[in-house]
Every structure is written in structure tokens, then in C-alpha cells.
């Protein structure tokens, strides 16, 4: 029973929250609102999947939100410069991936602790985003085919939800059912043992951080398409929420270990809470207080892994 609660307790608490909101929050259960919640989960979860991969290898990526903003700005700049949107999107995603690879290089080759190196790249990404924009957001009524990625619907289902479910399936299989996933997990759990058993742990960490950057780039594409604009700090709020979703995810399914399914459910709980509080009529400060409580509790539960990632490098 204890193990059951440890493994599924948070998920069950999320379910309890869902039931609570279904009963007390008007319109929570409406189809439109449930799709609204899932759409909001999409941005956060894709970004947090990347962070989860870095954390699986016991590396912290504190640059993912800024890399996402930079990728968004690159996409916005290129589209505003009349570059074909698929090219702009490819460039934006490549920007995120390059940032992740840079983090990987700094961590695995130059041996700069990820806590420090990713803070550095976060600052560089922020500076580049401001350099490209001059602080002024790229705003436009852009190509409808591009905006469809963020705003389009198939029937009443936002297409971004379908993209997110597809991405969830891919990263879930990647992290649990592939050789690469096993290598990433082994590297994060005990780097020395993994190395001695023949795993290229440097490559694993490089890939973990690169995937974090890739997640940032992909999220940027959806963000820009959804908002029809690109601003230098447009993903800033995702930093805290992305980390919170991942940490919350570490309290379920494989307790104390970062895991993709946990991250998705963590993101779902955070967004559900945020949506539910609005539907319940809560004032703005209640949401910040609740998010803070979630972070503190999830950090307390998953502290051991975090300590290893942050300080034992």
C-alpha cells in the first residue's frame, strides 16, 4: 500500500484535484475548457520534456526558457523578413538544438558544471534575443498555415494537442524503451557505474542537454504560432513552471527519478490548478502561492536527485 501511494500518490492527488474542480468549478468539465487546459499543457509539457531529459542524466538545464525565447525570436525575425515559414521554423528549432549542444559541450568537454554553464548560456540567449529584437517584439498577422500550428483545430480539437500527444509518445518510448533511454537513465543514476559498464556517459549527457534545447526550439515554434508574435522574454514564465512540472513528475510513477510521464502529469496538474483557480474566481496572487507550495513540496520529495544534479558535479 505504501509503495502504491509512493508511486501513484501524486497522480491520484491530481485526479482528486480534477474531481474537485469538476464539482466546484463551473464549466471546468466543458469540452471547450478541457481542450483549453490541454492546449495550455502542451507548451509547458513539451518544454519540460526537454528539461526532464537533461535531469535524467543528472544535469540541470537552467537555459531552456531563454533558449525557447531566443528560438522564438529567430522564427519571428525570419518570418518578418519574408523568409518562408518552414525555413524560419527549422532555423528556430535548430537554434534551440544548437543551444542545447553548446550546453552539452560546456558540461562534457570543458567540464563546467551544468548549473553554471546553463546560467551562462541563458544569459547569452537573453542578450542575443534582445540584440535581434532591440527589445521590440516581432508582431504580425502572419501566414495562416504557420499560425495553424498554434491556433488551428481539427473539428474542435486544437492541433497542438495532437502534436503534443505524438511528441509525448515519442519521448516516452525514447526514454523507456530504447537503448539510448537506458543509457541516459544509467548515466544519471550512477555515472561511474554506467561508464564502467561501457556506456559513453559524456555522449549521454550531451544528448540529454541537446534534447532539452530541442524541446525549447519546438516549444518556441508553437508559442510563436499561437501568439503571432515573438518577444525576447516570451518564455520567461516557463522557467519556474517547467521545473515545477518536472519536479512534481519526480514524485510519481518512478519516485525520485525524473520521468516523462510524470512530467506530463505534473504539467497537467499545474495547468489544471491554474485554470481551476480562475474558474473558481480566485484572485491572481492565489495562483502564485499555490505554485510556490507545489514547488516546495515536490522539491522536498525529490531532493536527493536534485542535490546530485546540482551539487555533486
Amino acid at each position, binding site marked *: 500500500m505504501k509503495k502504491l501511494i509512493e508511486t501513484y500518490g501524486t497522480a491520484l492527488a491530481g485526479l482528486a484535484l480534477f474531481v474537485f474542480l469538476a464539482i466546484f468549478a463551473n464549466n471546468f468539465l466543458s469540452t471547450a475548457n478541457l481542450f483549453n487546459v490541454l492546449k495550455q499543457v502542451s507548451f509547458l509539457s513539451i518544454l519540460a520534456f526537454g528539461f526532464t531529459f537533461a535531469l535524467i542524466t543528472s544535469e540541470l538545464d537552467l537555459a531552456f526558457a531563454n533558449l525557447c525565447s531566443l528560438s522564438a525570436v529567430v522564427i519571428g525575425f525570419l518570418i518578418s523578413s519574408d523568409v518562408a515559414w518552414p525555413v524560419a521554423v527549422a532555423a528556430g528549432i535548430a537554434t534551440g538544438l544548437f543551444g542545447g549542444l553548446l550546453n552539452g559541450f560546456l558540461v562534457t568537454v570543458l567540464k563546467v558544471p551544468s548549473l553554471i554553464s546553463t546560467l551562462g548560456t541563458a544569459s547569452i540567449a537573453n542578450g542575443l534575443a534582445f540584440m535581434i529584437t532591440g527589445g521590440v517584439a516581432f508582431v504580425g498577422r502572419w501566414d495562416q498555415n504557420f499560425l495553424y500550428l498554434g491556433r488551428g483545430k481539427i473539428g474542435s480539437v486544437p492541433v497542438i494537442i495532437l502534436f503534443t500527444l505524438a511528441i509525448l509518445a515519442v519521448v516516452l518510448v525514447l526514454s523507456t524503451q530504447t537503448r539510448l533511454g537506458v543509457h541516459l537513465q544509467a548515466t544519471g543514476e550512477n555515472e561511474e557505474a554506467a561508464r564502467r559498464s561501457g556506456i559513453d556517459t559524456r555522449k549521454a549527457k550531451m544528448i540529454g542537454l541537446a534534447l532539452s534545447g530541442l524541446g525549447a526550439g519546438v516549444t518556441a515554434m508553437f508559442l510563436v504560432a499561437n501568439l503571432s508574435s515573438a518577444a525576447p522574454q516570451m518564455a520567461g514564465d516557463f522557467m519556474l513552471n517547467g521545473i515545477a512540472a518536472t519536479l512534481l513528475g519526480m514524485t510519481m510513477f518512478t519516485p525520485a527519478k525524473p520521468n516523462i510521464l510524470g512530467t506530463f502529469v505534473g504539467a497537467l496538474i499545474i495547468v489544471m490548478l491554474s485554470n481551476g483557480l480562475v474558474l473558481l474566481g480566485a484572485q491572481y496572487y492565489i495562483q502564485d*502561492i499555490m505554485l510556490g507550495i507545489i514547488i516546495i*513540496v515536490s522539491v522536498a520529495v525529490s531532493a536527493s536527485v536534485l542535490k546530485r544534479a546540482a551539487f555533486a558535479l
Partner: protein
Amino acid sequence: MKNIKYALAAASLAGAAVAGTQAYAFELGVVAFQMSAETQARCANTVGEKAKELGWDAQVLNSNGSLETHASQLDNLIQKGVDAMILCMSKPVQFDGQFQAAKDAGIPVITISSGASPHTLFDVTPNEYVMAAEAAIYTLGSINFEGNILAQKFESNTGARIRGEVLDLVLSENPQVKLVGEHSMARTKSWQDDVRNGMSALILQNAGNFGAVWASFDGQALIIDDLLKEGGMEKGDVALVSIDGGQEVYRRIKDPYSMMTATVAIPFEDMAASAVEMMQKIAVDGVAKEDLVPGPYLFIPATLVDKTNVDEFIVE
């Protein structure tokens, strides 16, 4: 695990407490883009207060300067089915999809200092170009249209950007006044620190070589005022001019130790009150929007405040 249960129990209790207070009333969603900016907080809080005076159920949300958060909050309010929305300093182009969705859902939206949208009723705003011209000309006038000035700009906000561009236009027509240093505020979340760092460098670099400082909004001017005082300057040494208005600014205009010289006072409280009043007439009383505000804007006049009229604005 126990901790999680306690947290979720606390969340449930908080939700229940909030839910318990709900009763049927006209529901107004109020969203401010960045409430850490005093003007936006004044705007949103006043809307909330005025709505409550009418017996409405007003829910005030803060987007913390995040585009995505703002979009999510608008989506959530639409799903909640609020009766109306008033948005402070929103961004019509970025949130075109949300505004369209609100219109489709039959939710009337009035924006404040946001810009016009085909999906909203109208925007309550001062005329930025008029205010900017007044502040710019006053700044140059304070040094008799001859000498050097410093400027603190902010390009990320439409209104503040317009103010800076009008300053540049006024300067271009007055070549005997030189802009010897300018800093553009970049980080919207830690902007106070950004302004302090940038302007302290410019003030040191140009010490004794400038007669006035122009700031794109009063929050910046208050920081610059402190920097000038720390630099040993006294009232009359340098003129400090900005835009927005507020009790602290008025107090400093009167303060013999402050460099704050003038501001263009935007009546945010009046704008907020007008937005609520108009919303009541349109959404509750059924008055046609065109009978109240024919165009996309409801312009509210702003007033230049300096030592000659500051007493009229100070609330004791």
C-alpha cells in the same frame, strides 16, 4: 508523500474557500499584463474596486508580463463564461485569437491603454502622441532649448516607445539640444535594476554636462531621481521630466530635495472608472456602443503637472 497530501489538501481548502464565496452576480474578468508596474496595478485595482461598488463579481488577474500567461488567462476567463472583460495594457495583435474567441462567445471586452482591436468595444486611452509632445517640449523648455539632455527609454511597450519616438522628433527640430546619452530599458521583469545600472553609468559619464533628463515613464524617473540625489545634485541643477503621474511623483515635484520637475499625469483611475461605467451602460443597461463611443478609442485627457499646479493633484 505526506507533504504532498497536505499541500493538495491546502489547495482544496483554498479552492473551497474561494468557491464558497461565489454567488450570482455580473461577472467581470479583469486582467493586467504586468501588475508590478504601478500604473497597471492602479488601473486593474481601480477597475476591481469600481466593479465591486456596483455589486459585480470582479476577478483580477495578473499576467506577470508574460504573453503566454496573458493568453492562458484570457482563454480561462472565456471558458469560465464571464459576462465581460476589462483588460489593462493588453496587446490586441498578439491576442487577436483570444479577442476573437471572446467576441464569438458574446463576451464584451473593453481595453485600457492597449490599442484598438476589431473584436473589442473600444480602448480607453490618453492620446500618447499629445502627452509625449508635451513632455518632450517641456524637457527642452526647461533648459531654454539649448544644451544637453539624457534620456531613459523603453521600446518594448507601445506607449513608452511612442513617447521616445516623439522625443526624437522634437529633438530633430531643435538641433541646439543634444541627446548626449540614452539608455533603453530591456528587462521587463527586473527593470528597476536595469534602469539603475544603465542610468548610473550615463550620469557618471556625463557628470556636469547635461541640464535635463527625460524618462519614458515615472517609475524610471523615480529611480533616476534617486541616482541624481546620490550624485550630489540639488533641485534646479537638473530638470527631470516624465509621464504617468502618481502621488509619489507629485510629492517629489514639491519636494525641495528632489530633481523631479514635471510629469504628464494620466488619470488611470478615471480611465478605469470610465471603462467600468461604459461596460455597465453597454453590457447591463443595453445602450448601444456607438451611442457612447463612436470610434475605436475613448480618449481621456492627460494634464501636465509641475510646481505650478501640483497641489491640485496631491491627495493629503
